């Protein structure tokens, strides 16, 4: 299994993960739909997962891969809470556009 992963140089994994991570960050910063922002956050987390498994395979150290499971479990918990919050907002405002949420100003 290791040998297949190591066919591709480590740098390629780093570049790919960095690219996916940047797409996620840009999505969070630019999009105004709460669900899309949320998806972009998941994209960031998954790029981290990819990078962790690559590092872990290259170092022959299993702890990185175990960390990936932690991230997936926590991300699932976050999705549950996050979607509940978005549904709550939708019930009250009939919209998931974050631009409408500007009542709090100082």
């Amino acid at each position: 299994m290791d040998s297949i992963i190591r066919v591709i140089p480590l740098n390629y994994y780093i570049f790919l993960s960095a690219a996916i991570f940047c797409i996620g960050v840009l999505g969070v910063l630019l999009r105004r739909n709460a669900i899309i922002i949320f998806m972009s956050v998941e994209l960031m987390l998954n790029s981290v997962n990819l990078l962790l498994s690559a590092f872990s395979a290259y170092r022959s150290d299993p702890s990185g891969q175990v960390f990936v499971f932690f991230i997936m479990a926590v991300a699932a918990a976050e999705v549950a809470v996050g979607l509940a919050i978005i549904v709550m907002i939708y019930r009250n405002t009939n919209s998931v556009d974050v631009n409408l949420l500007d009542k709090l100003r100082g």
Partner: protein
Amino acid sequence: MVALISLSILGVFSMIAGLFNVNTKAVLTISIVTILGVLGFTAGFHWNNDYSRFYDMLNFDNYAVAFTCAILGSTAILLLFSEHFFSNIKQYITEYYSLIIFSVVGMIAMVAFDNLAMLFLGIEIMSVPLYILVGSQKKNLLSNESSLKYFLMGAFTTGILLMGITLIYGETGSFDLSTIQSYFQENATDSSPILLVGLFFLLAAMAFKVSAAPFHFWTPDVYQGSPTFITAFMSTVVKIAGFGAFFRLFYICFAPISEVWTTAIWVMAALTITIGSITAVFQNDIKRLLAYSSISHAGYMLISLLMVKNVESEAFGAIFYYVISYSISSIALFSVIMAVQKVKDSSSIDAFKGLAKANPLLGIIAAVSIASLAGLPPTAGFLAKFYILKSTVESGYVWLALIAVTNAIIGIFYYFKVLIAIYFKEAEDQSLSLIASSLAYKIVAVLLVIGILVLGIFPDLVYSIF
């Protein structure tokens, strides 16, 4: 370890108790007694008795024990003060308790971590219940909005934190703090871009969690929109945990490469203090004002990270003393705000007009806690700022100390705006005299005020425990 297990069981218990309509007063009493029992156990058995668990992923050293006790103590005091807040809520009260307790479990993991995996899990276990608590007023649009903002920003930061952890792992090959530290000691000149980016990401994520500038934008909105009790919880207990983790990560683990990050901390601390105190001057909503005040206090606590070259026990003492004094003063002030909000549906400063005349006890609590937050002697807040500034000057950061002192003076101005409303303005109506507090509330409040003064006169009780 015992703390984590018994608090988790307590959380599950109060969740199930809500299902069977157990008396909420009884659940509250059981929760407070258990929390205080865990506090006593942790302080009694783990102090001066290093204790590692889960293959060294958690380490209850003296630092972790002190912060755990601060977190548990603040939570217990806050729960004792909760009567005014929960008297307005009709249902799901025990769920509040259980979410708060689950959040505290995460915080204990945050201050006791010895492995970056535990740091991540601790932050998440703390944050996920908080997202729910912030949005717990389901019909209130402000609460909804602050919940969504907090959630989206928090999830975004989680991604950044994880990227930082991953890059540090890629460079050092381990999640274990002591392995990372010894790697840095051997490769002190290592400045590969992966390491630097990882360090910067970790710094940004931790700065977000303690609401330090330039990552503070969520704080005023979230503090203003969430229910007052949760605001109090976030600005005291969550702050203690955030700083516990921040300090443990940077002061202990990243100390060998401190040259890389001290400048960033310098700039962040100066920015945080200045933005916090200058923006607070223009606020008319007390919760928003306290949010900016908590931002500026975060700046003072950030300064303590610059003391890497100082004696360890002195730096630990300074940060711990600051955290304790800030926390008890804030809790005392928030208890007054919750009492006022019970009769007035407003959190603007005008709602506090004539409070001292209508209710002298609340007036005194507010006066002492505000004096402590502003940093006036003989309260604890004065010496807290003094110790931080003293070591700042000793470490050679004279300019930073000057900026901090200037902002402390601005701070006195906006804190006294609240105090003037309480003492020297006439009340608009009679509603403030309707506040009725139970005997327990009065006793705890008076003890807290005495605590603020005693800590200010005998600082060694906390300052020199390490």
